[in-house]
């Protein structure tokens, strides 16, 4: 039976690690942080994945996404708090300053023209109002293929 308190503490730790370092903690790091066995940390990672609280790379224990943060490099670069984060998509690139409650400079590209685009979040306002975000799938289908979404 899952220790619910510990489960959500681990989730919060993963997010704080992303915020502090721009990358997710390994299972070993999480086990050390909570002074638990490696196997228990593995089960907690899998449970958080099953609950869509984070997403593991298929067949691995590596955290690919803890939205809005991406565990891998992407075309959505978010400069904030002196660090460069990677977001999973056009929504998440704005989710990072929203989650961190900070200003940000975002560098990305138009998906089709491939032109570099830069926008800024400052004092909770956003620049470059002409840009559009396309949501290809309705909400009910987002998790059919999360990477595509």
């Amino acid at each position, binding site marked *: 039976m899952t220790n619910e308190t510990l489960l959500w503490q681990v989730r*919060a730790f993963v997010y704080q690690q992303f915020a502090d370092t721009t990358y997710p903690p390994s299972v070993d790091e999480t086990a050390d942080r909570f002074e638990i066995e490696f196997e228990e940390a593995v089960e907690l990672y899998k449970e958080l994945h099953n609950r869509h609280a984070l997403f593991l790379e298929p067949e691995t224990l590596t955290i690919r996404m803890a939205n809005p943060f991406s565990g891998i490099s992407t075309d*959505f670069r978010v400069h904030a708090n002196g660090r460069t984060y990677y977001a999973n*998509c056009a*929504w998440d690139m704005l*989710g990072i300053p*929203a989650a961190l409650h900070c200003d940000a400079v975002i560098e990305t590209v*138009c998906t089709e023209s491939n032109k570099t685009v830069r926008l800024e979040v400052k004092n909770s306002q956003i620049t470059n*109002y002409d840009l559009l975000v*396309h949501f290809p799938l309705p909400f*009910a289908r987002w998790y059919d293929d999360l990477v595509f979404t």
Partner: protein
Amino acid sequence: MLLFQSEEWIDKWCKRNNLARGEILTIHQVWELSKLWYHNRLSVDYHGRSVEQVAKIFKQAGLTSEFWYIQRLL
């Protein structure tokens, strides 16, 4: 969710990928949605959301079309 400079580029992308248009939001709309969706994501008290909470956020963001309809928690 992908970023585009204009609707023209979205149509080109949809045609090239043989996909129907989905929902298009302005960057300002997505920023407002992001604040509602992610503002408490780092909190230890964030344990996910109920169907009702998700529906409430979409409504607050003005997203009321069938595209945003939520029947069950994903």
